[in-house]
């Protein structure tokens, strides 16, 4: 498989040197030192590695870097605008929606994708959308609350 030499992450072009089969997750973490995306299972079952590719939530542990091409990748590190947190990041803090927080990056990225698609999700819609993300500490009810809070904040901001 041909090597991959370039990737766009968080609006920035990076020179990389990766085998096309290498997982996007390993490239993000090892070559770009963007370690906010986590390894949890390596088979797309836990969602800790979730990033956005062209705005869609993708499990980066099972996404070969060759599949990214010219598309824009957004990771947790690219979500805040300077010091201004994304409303969902802020909502996670406000709701205390974490314990060990190892799942948090993936939860937030999946939640952002949901909010982009549905600005007013119900609790059951959230639960359904987030089903592929595991939280072992058991903060799911708070994550649902945080997503709903961010949805309200988004509406208030006229988004």
């Amino acid at each position, binding site marked *: 498989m041909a090597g991959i030499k370039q990737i766009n992450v968080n609006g920035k072009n990076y020179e990389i040197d990766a*085998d096309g089969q*290498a997982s996007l997750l*390993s490239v993000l*973490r*090892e070559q770009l*030192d*963007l*370690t*906010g*995306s*986590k*390894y*949890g*299972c*390596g*088979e797309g*079952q*836990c969602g*800790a590695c979730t990033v956005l590719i062209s705005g869609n939530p993708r499990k980066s542990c099972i996404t070969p870097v060759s599949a990214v091409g010219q598309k824009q990748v957004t*990771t*947790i*590190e690219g*979500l*805040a605008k300077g010091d201004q*947190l994304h409303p969902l*990041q*802020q909502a*996670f*803090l406000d709701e*205390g929606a*974490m*314990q*060990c*927080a*190892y*799942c*948090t*990056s993936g939860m*937030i990225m999946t939640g952002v994708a949901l909010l982009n698609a549905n600005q007013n999700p119900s609790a059951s819609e*959230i*639960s*359904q959308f*987030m*089903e592929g*993300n*595991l*939280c*072992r*500490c*058991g*903060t*799911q*009810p*708070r994550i*649902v609350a945080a997503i709903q809070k961010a949805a309200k904040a988004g509406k208030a901001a006229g988004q």
Partner: protein
Amino acid sequence: MTATQNFHEELEPERYELAAPPPYRFEADRREFFKILGAGILVVSALSTVHAAQESGAAKRKPGGELPQEISAWLHIGENGKITVYTGKAELGQNIRTSLSQAVAEELRVSISSIAMVMGDTGLTPFDMGTFGSRTTPIMNLQLRKASAAARELLIGLAATQWSIDRKRLLAAQGKISDPDTSRSVDYATLVKGQQLTQTLPAEDPLIAAAAWTVQGQSLPKVDGRDFVTGKHRYPSDLKLPEMLHGKVVRPASFGATLTSFDAHEAEQMPGVTVVHDGNFIGVAAASTELASRAAAAIHAEWKSKPQSSNKELFEYLKKNSIEKKERAVGGESSRIESGSMENGLKSATHRLQQSYTVEYIAHCPLEPRSATAQWSGENVTVWTGTQRPFGVRGELAEAFRIPEERVRVLMPDTGSAYGGKHTGEAAIEAARLARAAKRPVKLNWTREEELTWAYFRPAGVIEVTSGMRADGTITAWEFHNYNSGSAGIRTFYDIPNQLIEFHATRSPLRQGSYRGLAATANHFARESHMDELALLVKMDPLEFRLKNLKDERLRAVFEAAAKKFGWGRAKTYAGQGFGIGGGFEKGGNVATAVEVAVDPATGAVKVVRVVTAFECGAIVNPDHLLNQIQGSNIMGLGGALFEAIEFENGRILNGRFSKYRLPRFSDVPQLETVMLDRKDIPSAGAGETPMLGLAPAIGNAIFDATGVRLRSLPLAPNGVKKV
């Protein structure tokens, strides 16, 4: 505390948590601390005090072990006013970095933001047995409050001397000492300027009473929460050192297999790959994880396996393989408690009941698998790793490499959870072995399959209960045998005159160890299921039956609170609906859980609809974090209660990945309601474990209520309830 609750303490700590402190530890003296930390105030204690404070009860297991005097620093106030706190405890998501900061802020009268916590670093923090057993709050919180109070009193004394006035006039508040009469004040930074003062931890400190707390008892958010929602925090698996390589270990074909031959020629030809073979260990280090994985896969190893038992015959195995008291078991010694006479108790009974309950092995599945980064400098090694026992892992490394502990430093960055599953240092030893050979730092992140195979499991167990009861529902006899799963929470808290309770240590087909709540989950499951079975015999309401046999006021209070919130006793409204209750006492906490289940009449599928938990653990330190622990315990507990079980056969794990090992997900989460009873008159206890204990029996009891089917095995219904 009542006599019943004291009696529990005698049986603790759980045997699967055994860990010995090192016989010696020689450290920097006071002058060196000031060299490192700069001038200021240092609160210290001698090691013997440290041990007494941290491990009351542990000492009797090491009789005559007089420990050398040693200086341990707990707290430093610098010339810039910065407070640095040192504790060997580890942050794994319990949010103790926050709650311990609250303890310091409370007693020292400073803002949370002026406090930096140094945690789980064997080079800097006082010795600590480890972060387990719900001991951080009752022991470390108190210890840091004492250290902070000692510093506060010293600061008041400094100001009094400076101003030549009676110290009784002075107040400590907001990082300042002030004299209300003259409105004069001085901040801590100014007071400690140029000083090198050491305050030894006194035996008694003027601690602020829970009723007067202003910082403790408040729902402060996670102190460094922002680092987590931005992905900035570096977990152990995120660390990166200059020149660092990535490691990969070639795993044996089955448990206990021995390496007979291997061919690493191909791997050795790969660029920059180091292959390490040492006894039964083969591993590689390479520039990337991809390359390390390729190299490891290219090593052709032959293993000699031995036949082993499988979970088909697990419970039979455990019953047949109990270990005589004289033998040392991995899980500790067997123990037996007897009061009254079972014979008399059964004679005076109208009803007798004998039942057997089982629990399967389950896995912790911390979302961050084991990880370690090791770096050698000459004969010294430093390892960053996710562990609940940094000092224990230091000991393991020293032993593995045959070097003194002084040459090993273990650091524990805040970690992606553990739940009792990260007591050991496998990854640390493996990373260090690879790093020594490669002469470069090596990071080794375990895969999920490795974590689900080569870590350890919550012990499986068989529990046999024999009971006797009078016609009026008074329990007269209680005999309880636990094979293998453990002794935590084994003692009944019901008032029964004749008891025989025994833990039988057993050989275990799988490597087993600690788990959140330990054996208390299994023991509560058996006990509280059996209670419902007895209630049925005399046609009593399960709650009424419990209260009839229960004097302990704290436990009665949580049962009553849960029942009230739940609406216990109301009529059912749909087919397949069932209500159940269960509860107990453990590690200073009292819990009662009432559950509503819906069992699909057609398929037998079980849905836990609603869970009401009442919990009381003394004075509440941080209500929101306590609530988070209670909710989390229930959600995690759903897995072990309903569907989690490790499947194994002949030394192999059959379901060692997330696609095969089902864990609770969003759609499994019931409506959770919590009642927290705040007892400001009772010292704060830990809360990470006990809230989960009532759940499994309450679900089992609710399933019985819904279907008439009594389930006596955990997990209860991995495939739904058969024969509805």
